[in-house]
């Protein structure tokens, strides 16, 4: 193990990604320290989801470099083409990141508890007796212990999303990625999910959160990243960001949102 004392949790350098003719990410760089909470905001189609998905290899990048706490998962040589590390290594590195989706992606054929214990059992080979108490503790933490034996279809959107968070946490990730975790929810249900994420922030979980919730970005995030047209236009500590946005496009966006 290399020394990881001062390495940032995520270091992404000059990420390029195209879908066919369209270059969706045009050189995105981001650095994130342990315990930081960064909110990613920006107009629709600006590449926020794509960037997040590149970080944990749901999409492959064309060019650039991604390191997780000093360990490179993809690098680019002098020819500029991205080269990923070997599969097993890649999976191990990606496993350090948990992800929560806009549409939850819970496993409908499993109960809430099974959803949470499945990956620790199948991927990490943990024994049931060992993981169930931890899963129950996580479900208690997100306020859903009483729903243990319910199937996801019986839950509200907010409850589903909290199960999804517990499920991701059960793998003990060092970083959590959220892609618009409240966008598919009725307005009255967003609060319970945001409270859960806020609680994680208080526990110093490193989190990258794509969101349209400006109030959440302002109050919970340590920094805010504004993306537009496949680029990071502005990235600053959140207090500064909202008090005095520098870039005209940021100002126009915030003006429309607030």
């Amino acid at each position, binding site marked *: 193990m290399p020394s990881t004392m001062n390495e940032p949790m995520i270091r992404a350098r000059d990420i390029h990604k195209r879908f066919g003719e369209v270059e969706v990410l045009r050189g995105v760089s981001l650095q994130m320290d342990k315990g930081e909470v960064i909110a990613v905001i920006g107009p629709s189609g600006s590449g926020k989801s794509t960037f997040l998905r590149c970080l944990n290899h749901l999409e492959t990048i064309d060019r650039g470099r991604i390191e997780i706490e000093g360990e490179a998962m993809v690098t680019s040589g002098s020819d500029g083409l991205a080269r990923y590390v070997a599969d097993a290594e890649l999976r191990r590195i990606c496993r350090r990141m948990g*992800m929560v989706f806009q549409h939850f992606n819970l496993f409908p054929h499993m109960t809430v508890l099974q959803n949470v214990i499945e*990956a620790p059992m*199948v*991927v*990490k080979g943990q024994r049931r007796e060992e993981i169930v108490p931890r899963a129950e503790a996580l479900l208690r933490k997100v306020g859903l212990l009483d729903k243990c034996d319910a*199937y996801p279809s019986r839950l509200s959107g907010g409850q589903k999303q909290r199960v999804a968070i517990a499920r991701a946490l059960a793998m003990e990730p060092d970083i959590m990625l959220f892609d618009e975790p409240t966008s598919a929810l009725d307005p009255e249900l967003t609060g319970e999910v945001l409270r859960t994420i806020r609680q994680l922030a208080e526990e110093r979980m490193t989190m990258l959160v794509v969101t349209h919730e400006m109030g959440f970005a302002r109050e919970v995030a340590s920094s805010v990243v504004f993306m537009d047209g496949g680029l990071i236009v502005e990235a600053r500590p959140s207090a500064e960001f909202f008090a005095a946005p520098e870039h005209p496009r940021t100002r126009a966006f915030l003006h429309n949102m607030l």
Partner: protein
Amino acid sequence: MDYVISIIGPLAEGSLVTLKLFFITLALALPLGLALALVRISRFRSLALAVGGYLWLMRGTPLMLQLLFIYFALPFVPVVGVRLPDFPAAVVAFALNYAAYFAEIFRAGIQSIDRGQYEGAKVLGMSYGQTMRRIVLPQMVKRILPPMSNETITLVKDTSLIYVLALNDLLRAARGIVQRDFTITPFIVAAAFYLLMTLVLTWGFQRLEKRYAVYDE
């Protein structure tokens, strides 16, 4: 009534041949069909294409023709040519044919599973194999129950095709008695046997569907 009871014995014997063919075909065609479906959707392009060709061939020609080919013509094919006894020949033809139909049902079922399920599994660190085994295939089962029910009921009735190989299945047993006794009663009793078998199947599938009804998607 006494007459009906007297012919139940031989018809039941014929049913055994029918049921034997039915169960052996299922036992072979289900795993083979699943394997074909997985190859068909795999990223090994040439293999996937080859399977596509196989499915086209097996679904595009009559089962009766395949049956006759394997029994009568296969022995004369160079290299692979073997003479199979009648029952094994029937098993091979049925298994190969039904595997093709099952493969299409499996493929459609697998492809109906939302991409989000694969992504949800992947970000939890699951491999492709784990994702298939634990997430995709179990959900596929629920979705394919209705077409599978249809297909297996068809299989029960298709087994009667083996009369061309002079195997004493239910239908052939009935026909033998009809010709001997000059009465159509054996046909009616045979129909009752077939109905009973398909009834049990329908009932079995209903139970399965109920069991899978514990969750919605």
